[in-house]
């Protein structure tokens, strides 16, 4: 059942997998915005404006591709904290992202959550904690609800990094989803690093997708630097899920170019050479070149796109920064539904 | 995999001597006798609880024969009477556990069948499923860390326990570190009332091994010799630096989960009767008699001896006192300790 897909997006060929020019440019814009907003987070941190930021550089392609397979208004996304590209790809605005970074009152969580722990009920974007794999049972429960209500045409996309596949809840979730043939796609963004822990210390068999068979579901491994291949694999799996075909496990091989967060110094555990070597495959310039070379976008069009992304990011930054923090008394709301008298 | 009768295949000894074959059979008889004794005592109102491993006799007696006493470690679960006996626990120790007497290894604290014996290399465990598997992995890590080749950890669980997160976490860690560990799943097809089909979508548990990067194998757990051979091979690999193995022994739970369970609420007599046709105890008896390892008279004598030993153990354990109320307060921490009052 486990399959490996071939790479579909090299500079020499463009296999569209049904994607229109507009969709291809949309994917690139998500990738550019992803990188821009994460860069912004690091800048704001260095400027002392925010205490913390993290980034998914290297995950742009898998996330933008997967997001293109997500049906807005129907599907549910249960992400993890390194999914900025997926979140904006399904409709989260740069302003909402900056509100999270700045922890402002207008943020979805009211400035409670760490940055990048987005939630938006309107978008079908589930609320998550920082505890790894803890969101997967929720995704399975949501998928169960879809199946129970016979809402075909809907599915859940649930993501994790490679490290979270070591958690018991990952196993329990895979098992339950397979037993009940639930409409869910587990997308593992394998970036080879769990903070400082390399894949070799995370698991003995680095091909995570090979576990799928043991659970009785299809497993697929894809090149996570190739947004079109990611789109195609996720689309195929989501379509199967939406039509009663049950769950799929997808492993997208990518790489974490930056340190884990602004609090992490990755020079303590991996060499600059390793990172530089992997940077050669950086999916963002690669995909830019691909679209330009195949005439989907002109060189000028690309520059315009980058300018518009920068302008939007700047505007979102300024707007979010100008908004107020939550008030001290906001600490006490939404503990329970009814007006709650805290024990004192 | 079909659970075939050993008889039909003739006798492939896998290096086992006549004496070892008789030991395996005696263990199987003793398991059944002690299991029944627990249920009888419960019906007589003498003990509040018992559970049985009928259907697991061959698997456990065979696996225990591959265990190196004084070297290996066993991390069992609560349906492992035959493994406990096979690695050296006495029927008397079993009865002390059933009666919760003061001389029981854990001083009458634990539920029956939750044996532990440091001398026997039998690790203490709770009733929480899969919670003992990380402990087994930790013990295997210690062996490897200290360079103790020639030792390994045999850890067991039922099919239901493979659904727990801790099962997964343990398998993964054991594989990463190539630990001297054998994970033996005793697949009896039932987790109390939950059949395999509600426990997992792919009923072949052994196939998960590849995903973890370790060998996996399924075998007929109704055949004690086949079990012995598979467990021995895996333990030998573990003892010599070859890393962990996932084994799946196919058996069946003939009885209800425990004296508190009525299995007729969730499965039919017919299903159980069908499985009983492959009952490993009479089957292995026939194998030994047919192949001349034992005569009918030998078998009868052994059965009498097993009954005698069970009766003696029962009487002796029953005569031992309960722990005292003051024993509630011991062994919480090392050294003298004053409970909060």
């Amino acid at each position, binding site marked *: 059942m486990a399959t490996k897909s071939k790479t579909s997006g090299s500079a020499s060929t463009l296999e569209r997998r049904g994607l229109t020019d507009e969709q291809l440019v949309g994917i690139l814009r998500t990738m550019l915005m992803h990188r821009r907003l994460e860069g912004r987070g690091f800048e704001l941190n260095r400027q002392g404006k925010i205490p913390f930021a993290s980034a998914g550089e290297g995950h742009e392609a898998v996330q933008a591709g997967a997001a293109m397979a997500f049906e807005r208004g129907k599907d549910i996304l249960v992400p993890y904290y390194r999914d900025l590209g997926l979140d904006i790809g399904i409709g989260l605005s740069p302003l909402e992202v900056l509100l999270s970074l700045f922890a402002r009152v207008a943020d979805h*969580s009211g400035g*409670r*959550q760490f940055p990048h722990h987005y939630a938006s*009920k309107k978008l079908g974007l*589930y*609320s998550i*904690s920082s505890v790894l794999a*803890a969101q997967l*049972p*929720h995704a*399975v*429960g*949501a998928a*169960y*609800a879809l199946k*129970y209500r016979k809402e075909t045409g809907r599915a859940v996309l649930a993501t994790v990094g490679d490290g979270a596949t070591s958690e*018991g*809840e990952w196993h*329990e*979730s895979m*098992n*339950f989803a397979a*037993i009940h043939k639930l409409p869910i796609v587990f997308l593992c963004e394998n970036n080879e690093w769990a903070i400082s822990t390399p894949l070799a210390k995370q698991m003995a068999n680095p091909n995570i997708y090979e576990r799928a068979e043991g659970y009785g579901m299809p497993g697929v491994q894809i090149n996570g630097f190739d947004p079109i291949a990611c789109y195609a694999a996720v689309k195929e799996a989501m379509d199967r899920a939406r039509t009663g075909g049950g769950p799929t496990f997808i492993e997208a091989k990518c790489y974490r170019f930056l340190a884990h967060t602004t609090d992490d110094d990755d020079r303590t555990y991996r060499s600059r050479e390793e990172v530089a070597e992997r940077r050669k495959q950086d999916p963002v310039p690669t995909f830019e070149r691909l679209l330009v070379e195949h005439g989907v976008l002109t060189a000028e069009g690309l520059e315009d796109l980058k300018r518009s992304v920068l302008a939007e990011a700047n505007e979102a930054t300024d707007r979010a920064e100008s908004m107020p923090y939550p008030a001290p008394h906001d600490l006490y*709301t*939404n*503990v*329970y*539904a009814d007006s709650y008298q*805290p*024990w004192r | 995999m079909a659970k075939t009768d050993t008889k039909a295949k003739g006798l492939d000894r896998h290096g086992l001597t006549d004496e070892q074959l008789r030991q395996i059979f005696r263990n199987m008889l003793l398991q059944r006798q002690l299991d029944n004794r627990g249920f009888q005592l419960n019906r007589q109102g003498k003990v509040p609880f018992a559970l049985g491993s009928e259907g697991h006799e061959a698997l456990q007696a065979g696996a225990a024969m591959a265990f190196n006493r004084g070297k290996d470690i066993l991390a069992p679960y609560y349906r492992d009477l035959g493994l406990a006996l096979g690695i050296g626990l006495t029927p008397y120790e079993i009865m002390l556990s059933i009666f*919760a007497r003061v001389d029981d290894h854990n001083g*009458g*604290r*634990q*539920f029956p069948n939750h044996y532990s014996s440091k001398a026997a290399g039998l690790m203490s465990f*709770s*009733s*929480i*499923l899969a*919670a003992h598997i990380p402990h087994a992995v930790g013990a295997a890590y210690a062996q490897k860390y200290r360079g103790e080749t020639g030792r390994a950890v045999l850890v067991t669980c039922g099919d*239901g*326990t493979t659904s*727990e*997160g801790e099962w997964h976490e343990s398998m993964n860690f054991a594989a990463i570190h190539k630990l001297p560990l054998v994970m033996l799943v005793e697949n009896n097809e039932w*987790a*109390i*009332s*939950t059949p395999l089909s*509600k*426990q997992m979508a792919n009923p072949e548990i052994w196939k998960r091994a590849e995903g973890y990067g370790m060998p996996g194998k399924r075998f007929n757990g109704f055949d004690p010799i086949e079990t012995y051979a598979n467990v021995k091979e895996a333990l030998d690999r573990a003892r010599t630096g070859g890393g962990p193995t996932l084994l799946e022994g196919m058996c069946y739970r003939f009885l209800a989960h425990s004296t*508190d369970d009525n299995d007729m*609420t969730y499965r039919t007599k017919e299903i159980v009767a069908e499985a009983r046709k492959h009952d490993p105890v009479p089957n292995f008896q026939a194998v030994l008699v047919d192949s001349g390892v034992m005569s009918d008279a030998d078998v009868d004598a052994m059965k009498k001896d097993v009954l005698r030993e069970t009766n003696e153990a029962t009487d002796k354990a029953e005569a031992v006192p*309960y722990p*005292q*109320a003051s*024993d*509630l307060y011991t062994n919480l921490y090392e050294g003298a300790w004053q*409970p*909060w*009052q």
Partner: protein
Amino acid sequence: MAVTAGSKVLNNVEAVRETLYEAMKSDDRTIILGEDVGARGNVFLITKDFINEFGPERVIDTPIAEASIVGIAVGMAMEGLRPIAEIQFADFIYPAFNQIVGEAAKTRYRSNGEYTCPLVIRTPYGGGVRGALSHSVSIEALFYHVPGLKIVAPAFPADVKGLLNAAIDDPDPVLFLEHKKTYRLIKGEVPEGHYTIPIGKANVIKEGRQLTVVSYGLYVHWALEAANQLENEGMSVEVIDLRSIRPMDRTTILNSVEKTRKLLIIHEDNKFGGIGAEISAMVAEEALFSLDAPIRRLAAPDVPAMGYAEPLEHEYMSSPAQMADAMRELVKF
């Protein structure tokens, strides 16, 4: 027992069963999931035959995986179902600790109200049944520290029904604790039809003047027995059944203490860090100068659990006689 019109006599297990049945009947968003809840109908037969009537999609025999039993229920709740998750014995809840404390209790708070988690987690707890180290524990103190979670531990069948209905209707996660020794031991009148008892309201089950006794679960019954015995000796003891552990009904406790001027808290869970510790601290903060005697707690000794052997269980648990002694001592103080 004379039965009031519109009521019937049920034991606690029947009260749970009837309430779950009515919830399943009245709302098809209600899903029951847990180990052996389907074909077996739960190990205490609470959901016997539910699977036949409501089908396996609504009565889910889960794999043995407690973290995901709760976690999947959280996801179901976030997606609009009304799951009732069962942990077969409270002792098995530890693997689900993160999903209860880290996830369910924080869903509303962390999303600032956008996502909610209307979820009931039912579990049998408590001892006196020869359940040994892993089938006897009390878990309430491990969870009552957690804002965002509600904890209910009723003692009487009518409260079981009213509070379980309230828990099912509640928009937030509720840990519903059922004392397994009371399951068949305790019978009482239960009104027909749907009704709720507010979570967070204690019940004065016996009025008295000289001492306030606060308890919950099985010990409420034993405390009542002891208090009635003292009544015959001419002493007047007020008994409060806490019913809800979080939120806690400070008003009922304080009103009673200000009347009786003495407080005894009795629970089966360990004394150290137990529910009694919080009640003591609260009363000491709010009503110290109303007290005529030191606050007393009668609770389990500071050991991990009751052992299997009978003497170990007896030593761990408090008896009605010990309760009566503690009450007498305090009344006479």
